[in-house]
């Protein structure tokens, strides 16, 4: 079974689907990779940002709160002008005040000398002396209101690490300097830290934790975590290391998370963001992305399909329709599908090819016409056409004519004298056409004439001619023939009939077909024996022989001239008398029939040779 070819639209659709799906998959994968990386980066940045913010807050506010403390102290009852007047008393008071609190208070005069201090040893210390201390001298020149330092060893004793803050007396008589130990400072910091982290989330799902140098959680968004050790949370902090926005991934309280650790002012700020939450966000983004991509690809697919149909498939159908017209036989049909370059080209090429073919067909037809011309020439050239043929004989009138059709039917007639007293005449119709028909006709005519002129009776002539013509008759042509020998003295006609149309005998104006038993047409089958038959012509009788080109002549509606019409035409009465003319009555009869046929067909194309032979017997004397 022949495999049915797939439609081009189907093939391309299948390919498109495969490509689109593959592209979608590739695109989705790339998107996933990109988004993954982005999400990872963004989450890390987010956590870090939050840790940064908190760190900064703590830094600022830690210092700020200390300065506020110093300011409060400055404006308090402890530090008044009166008290400063008596520095020793003030010092004792300061010492009492600071006892156990881990703070140090120094009152410095405008010369930079500590005049009162909670630490007796510092009284009289010149701030100019130490590097750390001398930084505070800016409070004396009137340019600065307050000054704060980071934790460092003080000028008096490097090993004593304190954080100092100073504030100028409003009257310019000096400044107040407060020092904080780590612990006391830490309280201030942790207050801020607490403040900073309470109610503070990282986005929706992250949070912050603060732990001290002992690695205990001071405060967290999740209150339950407060007081726990950081290692309980699953985070390892090495106190000897610096933590400058340190990123890591670990399980925080059992939840895999992004972690960012920053150490500031002695506390560890820790940002935590669950990985699962980050991934969930990623999934949402992926889904949105895929849906968008799928939509775009779907639109692309539909658009391509439509485009394909419009530009290609429909045009191919149009070209096919045009070609169908041409193969049906309409060679003048043109293909005009010209909306794109390729189809324009195709249309032009097809039309050119068809034109070429038309040319070849016309050439071939012309050659056939030329052949037919040759055949027709052969045909007409061998037929005797001089009338009257035997002017010395007055016993009869004879006329014959053959008008060949375009297709050349191979009809012929012949007549000859056999001795002085016998006229041989015949009419014949060869079955083949064109050159083969013409050649067979010539052969047939020659064979018959040769045999007849020897004086052999007509039936024997046919019998022998039949054998001869059967030989080498590969084309299987045959010849119908009617031959008669007219005895000029008696009017007896010896006849041989090889399947030919019965001639018309006109006697006294009455027309009748001469029905004689026919033999098979010549060259039809070997071994035929033809029987001789006889008929009688009286004086004035007309014998009209014809081929089927006469009776089968057709008009435009394919109606045939017919035997009846012929008989009627050849029936002569008062209103339709025997014709006469230059070629005698015999000639006139032929012309009359020819004219009547022409009138009947009314210009329709002649399909077969119109051949006729007419004899009028006059008798002797």
């Amino acid at each position: 079974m022949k495999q049915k070819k797939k439609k081009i639209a189907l093939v391309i659709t299948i390919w498109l689907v495969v490509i689109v799906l593959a592209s979608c998959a590739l695109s989705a994968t790339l998107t996933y990779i990109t988004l993954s990386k982005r999400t990872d980066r963004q989450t890390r940045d987010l956590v870090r940002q939050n840790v940064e913010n908190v760190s900064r807050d703590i830094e600022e506010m830690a210092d700020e709160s200390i300065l506020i403390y110093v300011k409060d102290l400055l404006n308090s009852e402890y530090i008044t002008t009166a008290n400063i007047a008596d520095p020793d008393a003030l010092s004792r008071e300061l010492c009492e005040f600071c006892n156990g609190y881990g703070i140090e208070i120094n009152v410095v005069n405008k010369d930079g000398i500590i005049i009162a201090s909670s630490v007796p040893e510092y009284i009289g210390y010149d701030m100019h002396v130490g590097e750390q201390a001398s930084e505070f001298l800016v409070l004396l020149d009137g340019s600065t209101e307050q000054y704060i330092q980071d934790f460092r060893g003080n000028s008096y004793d490097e090993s004593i690490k304190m954080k100092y803050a100073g504030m100028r007396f409003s009257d310019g008589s000096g400044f107040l300097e407060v020092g904080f130990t780590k612990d006391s400072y830490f309280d201030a910091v942790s207050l801020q830290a607490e403040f900073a982290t309470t109610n503070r989330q990282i986005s929706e799902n992250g949070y912050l934790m603060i732990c001290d140098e002992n690695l205990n959680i001071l405060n967290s968004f999740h209150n339950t975590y407060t007081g726990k050790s950081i290692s309980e949370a699953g985070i390892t902090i090495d106190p000897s290391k610096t933590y400058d926005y340190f990123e890591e991934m670990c399980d925080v309280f059992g939840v895999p998370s992004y972690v960012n650790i920053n150490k500031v002012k002695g506390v560890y700020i820790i940002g935590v963001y669950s990985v699962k939450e980050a991934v969930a966000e990623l999934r949402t983004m992926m889904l949105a992305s895929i849906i968008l991509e799928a939509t775009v690809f779907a639109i692309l697919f539909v658009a391509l399909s439509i485009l394909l149909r419009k530009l290609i498939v429909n045009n191919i159908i149009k070209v096919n329709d045009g070609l169908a017209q041409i193969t049906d036989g309409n060679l003048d049909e043109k293909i005009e599908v010209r909306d794109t370059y390729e189809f324009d080209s195709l249309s032009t090429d097809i039309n050119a090819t068809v034109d070429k073919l038309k040319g070849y067909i016309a050439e071939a037809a012309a050659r056939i016409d030329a052949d037919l011309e040759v055949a027709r020439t052969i045909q007409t050239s061998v037929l005797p056409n001089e009338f009257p043929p035997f002017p010395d004989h007055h016993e009869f009138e004879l006329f014959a004519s053959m008008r060949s059709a375009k297709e050349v039917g191979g009809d012929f007639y012949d007549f000859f004298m056999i001795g002085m007293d016998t006229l041989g005449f015949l009419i014949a119709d060869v079955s083949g056409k064109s050159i083969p028909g013409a050649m067979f006709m010539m052969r047939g005519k020659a064979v018959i004439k040769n045999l007849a002129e020897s004086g052999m009776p007509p039936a024997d002539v046919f019998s022998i001619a039949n054998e001869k013509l059967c030989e080498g008759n590969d084309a299987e042509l045959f010849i119908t023939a009617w031959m008669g020998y007219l005895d000029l003295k008696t009017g007896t006609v010896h006849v041989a009939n090889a399947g030919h149309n019965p001639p018309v005998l006109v006697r006294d104006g009455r027309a009748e077909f001469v029905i004689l038993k026919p033999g098979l047409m010549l060259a039809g089958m070997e071994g035929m024996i033809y029987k001789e038959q006889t008929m009688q012509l009286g004086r004035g009788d007309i014998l009209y022989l014809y081929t089927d080109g006469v009776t089968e002549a057709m008009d435009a509606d394919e109606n045939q001239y017919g035997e009846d019409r012929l008989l009627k035409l050849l029936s002569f009465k008062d209103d339709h008398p025997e014709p006469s003319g230059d070629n005698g009555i015999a000639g006139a009869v032929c012309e009359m029939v020819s004219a009547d046929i022409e009138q009947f067909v009314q210009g329709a194309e002649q399909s077969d040779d119109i051949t006729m032979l007419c004899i009028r017997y006059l008798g002797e004397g």
Partner: protein
Amino acid sequence: MNVTTIPEGTKLTVIAEGKLGTTAAPELENAVKNNIDGVTELIFDFEKLEFMASAGLRVLLSAAKTMKKQGSMKIIKVNPEVMEVFTFTGMADMIDIEAI
């Protein structure tokens, strides 16, 4: 003209419908040629045949010659007009022809 062939083992029936003229004769010729191998009984059914020209005679004559070697041939249901052609060409004496 329409030609239909009905092969039944070694019997072949050829039905001709319409007018058997010069243009139609090759069709009949092909129908016979393509199916005649091994046929021992050839029948032409001319019930629907309106008209016959000499080109048709040639095909029938050729078929008759072939069947003379292979078996038998018969033309049946011939209308008067076509019968006349068979008669005056002498075919009626050579081939088994039955009138309608």
